[in-house]
């Protein structure tokens, strides 16, 4: 957005911030240690505004909780900008020096009045005004977001809107401020950095940039395809349509994590050849022709890059079980068996060195340096460069940054008479993604043994539901079991379900309707209904026995 896809600022800076605007992030559950920094800032007296359809724990602690309707983020953010412009609170000097297109933004947000916003989002106009004033007049004010912003059909619009807000108020290139996507996986950042992307080679160099391509062709010794490839959601579509017939899948259980998996499973059945490389026999292995046993993080060397661009070491502590091997060794063997002369790397340090040689952003980072200096934050272009704590000091990396005003578009699937509730999905503190790791651990299993659905007291009353009752949750795509958890955290009309339980997969319900740019699926909004189970055979099935598996 400003020239780098990462947190602009650093995690340790959070404790010194004066205001936190947390939107679409249940930080205490998804990023507990970042939440500790937020709690610390809060104790120091920093203001906290939380925008989330659920009254999550952070919302309880907040000065203001903006309990918006799911999917109305663009309305909310535009209204905040409306107030800032109407009251003349924008950072004129920053706008003049570092941005372009302010008039287009002004024209769009002019129509987004706080009063109208209240009608659409359900957030009181006065709270929107207060948020706008606090944010615009606090120098060290940071925005923190995660998948509640991106997992929408208008996810890109949401991100653009937040970026507009940052530019409008000049909260960029300042410590303890900025725009901070909190990364959900240990190495999402590092996987993107390393070029596991259809558009980018390592270091965010575009595949359709002839100069970048020439550099990689020279190093790798083969001609490379100049056309960008397909994103994961597009690839999944292609699997369903039969265009992709061969899949290599490393360390992901797509049958659990992709939306609308019923359809995907049919596509996988029709594929010609599927390889799964993982540490456990996951659900996707049912479709695999070859299953390769891999080493887990404790059994190999390498690096992970965290949310704040910090490249840190992974070190081998124990041997892999049986014949399992580190993924990097397996990948090299496959390449050679396929006729490509992959170098005989001595180890991950040498692989990293090859990547750093090809990527100016990480050129100064190496395993030996991390050994002596600890984690290094990119950009780090030279071996003597200390790394970068916060980005865009002295203006956006890309020079002038353009405002990208976004108009509100409703989520693809709206509740109706047949499916009157809005279902959002997400992660809990005790489990992690497909839960192949955490459901083998006693604490998380005791805390959360089975799938559950959070329902507001009002909806529970209306549907005659009791706490702890097993129900069916249904969408246009499927039905799953869940235990009712009546919760004051929920907005009436909205329900929430975790994604962790393979026997009751929330993603049988979710829609694969994706963002127009990224294709990221709308895991946060789909229409659903809850049905009581009358057949007693179902109610006995509390899932506890399976959870102990």
């Amino acid at each position, binding site marked *: 957005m400003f020239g780098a896809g990462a947190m602009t600022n650093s995690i340790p800076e959070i404790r010194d911030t004066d205001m936190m605007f947390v939107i679409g992030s249940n930080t205490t559950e998804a990023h*507990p240690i970042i939440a500790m920094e937020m709690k610390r800032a809060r104790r120091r007296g920093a203001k906290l505004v939380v925008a989330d359809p659920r009254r999550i724990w952070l919302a309880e602690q907040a000065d203001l909780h903006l309990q918006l309707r799911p999917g109305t983020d663009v309305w909310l953010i535009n209204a905040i900008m409306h107030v800032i412009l109407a009251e003349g609170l924008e950072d004129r000097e920053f706008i003049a020096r570092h941005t372009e297109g302010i008039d287009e933004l002004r024209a769009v947000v002019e129509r987004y009045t706080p009063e109208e916003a209240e009608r659409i989002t359900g957030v009181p106009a006065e709270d929107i005004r207060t948020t706008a004033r606090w944010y615009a007049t606090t120098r060290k004010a940071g925005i923190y977001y995660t998948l509640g912003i991106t997992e929408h059909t208008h996810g890109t619009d949401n991100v653009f809107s937040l970026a507009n807000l940052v530019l409008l108020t000049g909260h960029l290139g300042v410590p303890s401020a900025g725009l901070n996507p909190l990364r959900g996986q240990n190495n999402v950042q590092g996987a993107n950095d*390393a070029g596991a992307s259809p558009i980018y080679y390592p270091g965010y160099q575009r595949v359709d940039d002839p100069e970048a391509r020439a550099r990689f062709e020279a190093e790798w010794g083969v001609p490379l395809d100049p056309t960008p490839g397909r994103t994961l959601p597009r690839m999944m579509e292609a699997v369903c349509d039969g265009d992709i017939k061969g899949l290599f899948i490393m360390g992901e259980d797509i049958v659990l994590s992709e939306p609308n998996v019923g359809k995907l499973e049919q596509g996988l059945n029709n594929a010609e050849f599927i390889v799964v490389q993982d540490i456990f026999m996951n659900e996707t292995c049912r479709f695999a*022709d070859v299953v390769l046993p891999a080493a887990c993080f404790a059994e190999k060397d390498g690096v992970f890059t965290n949310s704040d661009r910090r490249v840190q070491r992974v070190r081998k502590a124990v041997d892999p079980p*049986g014949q399992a091997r580190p993924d990097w060794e397996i990948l090299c063997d496959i390449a050679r*068996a*396929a006729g490509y002369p992959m170098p005989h790397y001595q180890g991950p340090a040498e692989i990293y060195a090859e990547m750093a040689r090809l990527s100016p952003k990480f050129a100064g980072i190496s395993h030996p340096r991390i050994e002596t200096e600890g984690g290094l934050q990119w950009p780090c272009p030279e071996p003597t460069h200390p790394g970068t704590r916060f980005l865009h000091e002295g203006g956006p990396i890309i020079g002038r940054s353009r405002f990208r005003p976004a108009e509100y578009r409703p989520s693809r699937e709206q509740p109706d008479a047949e499916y009157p509730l809005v279902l959002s999905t997400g992660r809990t503190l005790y489990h992690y993604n497909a839960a192949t790791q955490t459901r083998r651990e006693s604490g998380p299993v005791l805390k959360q043994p089975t799938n559950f659905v959070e329902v507001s007291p009002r909806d529970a009353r209306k549907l005659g539901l009791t706490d702890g009752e097993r129900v069916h949750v249904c969408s246009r795509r499927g039905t799953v079991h869940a235990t009712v958890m009546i919760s004051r955290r929920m907005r009436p009309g909205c329900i929430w379900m975790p994604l962790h339980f393979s026997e009751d997969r929330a993603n049988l319900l979710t829609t694969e309707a994706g963002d127009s740019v990224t294709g990221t699926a709308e895991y946060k909004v789909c229409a659903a209904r809850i049905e009581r189970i009358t057949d007693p055979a179902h109610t006995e099935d509390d899932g506890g026995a399976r959870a102990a598996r």
Partner: protein
Amino acid sequence: MTSFTIEIDGRPVQARPGDTVLELARGQGIDIPTLCHDPRLEPAGCCRSCLVEIEGQRRLQPACTWKATPGLKVSTRSERIERHRRVLMSLYLADHPVDADGRPPESPDGNALRHLTEGMPLLDLDRIDSPRAGRPDDDNPYIRFDPARCILCARCTRYCDEVEAVNAIALTERGGATTIGTIGMTGLLHTSCELCGGCIDTCPTGALSEKKNADLDLAAAEVTRTTCNFCGVGCQVDLHVLDGRVVRVTSPPPGTTVNDGNLCVKGRFAFDFIHSEDRLTEPLVRGEDGRLHPTTWQDAIEKTAAGLLGVKRRHGPGSLGFISSSRCTGEENYLVQKLARAAFGTNDCHQCAAT
């Protein structure tokens, strides 16, 4: 902020408003003993171990809470301080279990009382053995509380309040019965506890310890520093290994890494998966019967390459997709995209969480 000079043990020390005597002394390498101090917590001044002489003050004062002011003069060593510490430690020990050698017992993370009384001539006091209650029926799987070893420094309860902010445990009862309690003394699973284990980490005497590895000789474990494999915070963790198995996970000390000494329930305790019986241990290939069968690595690799090349030959490189993983290392992601692009000629390579 204007700095000023104070004097500690006759040495001039630069200070800024808000600095405490303890921080400034430790910055000079002057050792002041503490029990209730943890840099992540507000100073409490409750254990009385860090008392020092401050010019103009009639009584000894806690170094951890005393703020520096211009011209302040501090002595950290004197006969009076020695005498105070000897009495204080003797009192602590009268209410603390002792080993056969008459010294406080070790714990996996040491025991600050044992360390602080090393070589100290103690007073011969009658034993007190306060009636602190524990929660012997607490069925939580991770955290054990031994009330006998508790010295009521309140680091655990303050951590639970100030850092984790869930307030699952608190000082309860009064007088000699004061203990670390929960609401109604129920087990931690039935409280707001999130099982982060920070209370164990901060406990100076081993009154709080881990249940998972209680019977193991943790002192013999080899420790490897690595990065946690769950969310994107990048917490640094120390894996403790005994007999080829990870038996414990701890954080590096506060102030040294991005997680500042803290971990969550997943990072600290969810490591059993590493040695799970369900781990894949051999390559598998699907046979004519439609089932997966064990095979050799060579066969599995050859079948993988041949299978992917076959699809490419029949339908072109656009018929192949490579899904990489945000759980794997940077080097491995680099190799997957190199495999896709250089070996199979396609840019259809993405990772599972491109958000």
